[in-house]
């Protein structure tokens, strides 16, 4: 994995510190060309991986990449699925069954949902595979060497104790997409314990790592212990703690943990991208 991964929150009005800033972002990135403009700047600065949600608008960005193979042929995308708000808003309105009916392609599900017959064990794996394939469709022809499940889903499965789902996901991503499965979480220590328990060795885990413990469930101490002692491939996210930390102190803190393979960050201007990129190369050896 590249040391620096470029994220997409800034493009989709995700700002964990300010709803007002988030609206300003929605206005600035109204057109896909504005997103592509910033991505191109990042590429010119040497960034080679874009880690993004399976938001509808990412499909347009993928179209653009496919039509310009010369420029993007070595470029990687790390998809993160699903785009949770799409499903969450649908569940609020349609319920869980209604949402599955809306998003599962084809009709294999319709008869079951109406008839109320027993759902076979294998059907759960099948349903997961269908949903993954639906989300992955937009990336056809694009390099996707690592494929992530979003934290909302990872942490839901984790809390419910449905660990076998991780195993099925892991196997399917390797087999069908010839890619590494990755996990995004707000509960890194608990997740790593669960994955190791399943025999999943050295997993790629993308998680909040910052010195004020923001969105790090359980607190800094246990995170630092795991970063020092355990075997996994960490990607640090939320490193600026939603803007509470200055970039230099934030990245310097990451430098204490040689195990961190990559840092995920998003920015909207060339200056900010360059500054963060240089700090990462300076402190993460």
């Amino acid at each position, binding site marked *: 994995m590249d040391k620096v991964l470029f994220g997409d929150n800034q493009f*989709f*009005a*995700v*700002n*964990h*510190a*300010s*709803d*007002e800033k*988030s*609206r300003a972002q*929605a206005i600035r990135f109204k057109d896909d060309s504005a997103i592509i403009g910033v991505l191109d700047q990042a590429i010119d600065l040497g960034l080679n991986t874009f880690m993004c949600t399976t938001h509808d608008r990412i499909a347009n960005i993928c179209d653009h990449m496919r039509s310009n193979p010369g420029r993007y042929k070595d470029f990687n995308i790390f998809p993160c699925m699903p785009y949770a*708000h799409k499903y*969450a*808003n649908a*569940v*609020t*309105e*349609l*319920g*869980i*069954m*209604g949402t599955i009916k809306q998003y599962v392609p084809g009709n294999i599900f319709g008869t*079951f*949902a109406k008839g*109320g*017959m*027993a*759902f076979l*064990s294998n059907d*759960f794996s099948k349903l997961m595979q269908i949903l993954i394939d639906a989300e992955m469709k937009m990336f056809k022809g694009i390099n996707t060497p690592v494929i992530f499940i979003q934290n*909302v889903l990872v*942490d*839901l*499965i*984790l*809390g*419910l*104790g*449905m*660990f*076998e*789902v991780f195993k099925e996901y892991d196997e399917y991503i390797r087999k069908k997409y010839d890619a590494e499965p990755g996990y995004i979480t*707000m*509960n890194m220590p*608990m997740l790593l314990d669960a994955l190791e328990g399943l025999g999943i060795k050295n997993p790629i885990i993308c998680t909040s790592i910052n010195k*004020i*413990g*923001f*969105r790090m*469930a*359980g*607190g800094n101490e246990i995170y630092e212990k795991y970063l020092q002692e355990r075997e996994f491939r960490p990607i640090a996210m939320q490193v600026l*703690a*939603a*803007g*509470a930390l200055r970039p230099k102190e934030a990245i310097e803190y990451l430098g204490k943990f040689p195990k961190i393979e990559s840092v995920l960050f998003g920015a909207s201007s060339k200056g900010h991208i360059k500054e963060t990129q240089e700090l990462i190369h300076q402190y993460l050896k």
Partner: protein
Amino acid sequence: MNKIRGSIIGLGKMGLSHAAIVGAHPAVEFAAVCDTSSMILDGFKKYTKVHTYSDYKKMIDNEKLDFTVIATPTKYHYPMVKYAFDNNVNVFCEKPFTLLSSEGQELVEIAASKWLVNQVGYHNHFIGTFRELKRLLQENVIGELVHFSGEAYGPVVTMEKGSTWRSKPEEGGGCLFDYASHVINLIQEIIGRPEQVNGALLKSIYSKGVEDAVYSLLTLESGLTGTLLVNWSDETYRKMSTSLSLQGKKGKIICDATEIKIYLKEPNQKEKLEKGWTIKYITEFALPVNFELRGEEYSAQIDYFVDNIISKKNGSLNTFSQGLYTDKVIEMIIEKAKKN
């Protein structure tokens, strides 16, 4: 330490989220779930050891529970809570509490007479910025209050569609019960009890039969007046966004789940606040939790409930009696809107 035994009734979006939080809680043995969907129960059977039920009474009879979380549509709350209380089971109930305040009143009385822990899922009370707002108001930083505004916007119903349970007013499916209840409860907790509804508009935008927006003028018991502005058909918001704004004689505060913006006419030395604007972020106020799913407030409210059961205390936050008062304000708004 012996773990306490917990269960969930109703495995929709909120129920599943509570199930994960209960499942990850170190002091709780996640004993059982109950839902009417055989597919959801099959999922629990396949992937977990949690016992599954389609009848909540059987679950409560069989499982020797310390508590249950009820996350069903509001119309089912009354019989379910009552059955749990009859069997001495502590209850965390999703919002809004009940559809009829007379039923809510009965449940409040049973909880008090049996000393059972009772809490309603108004999670905004566990967001650090709103707690800080309450503290700043208690410290009187913006002086005598002259106006408040409680607002919530989000993209739930953004086009015309067929009906779900949400489109039936008698089942509590509109924006008033679902979205505005959060704001009414927050006004009650942080600023004061609304006592009078001076005007109310319930507007349908895309839904049939229920309102998509609620606009109302309220008077609180302190005499302070203000507005309630809520619209769940606003797709300029990516997700639900709730805020409280207060105007005082010495300044103004605008607070949401991510930041508090304070404007002061004169500096406040005790609070180290300068003249003009000061902005503080959630990073400073977030409550520490051991498990996080969709925001720390969801875990923090369950932690609080579980702690109260273990220490045999009846909490003061989000009690049934507070939830009941929110239901009463909802009834007052409906009455007022009918008169228009």
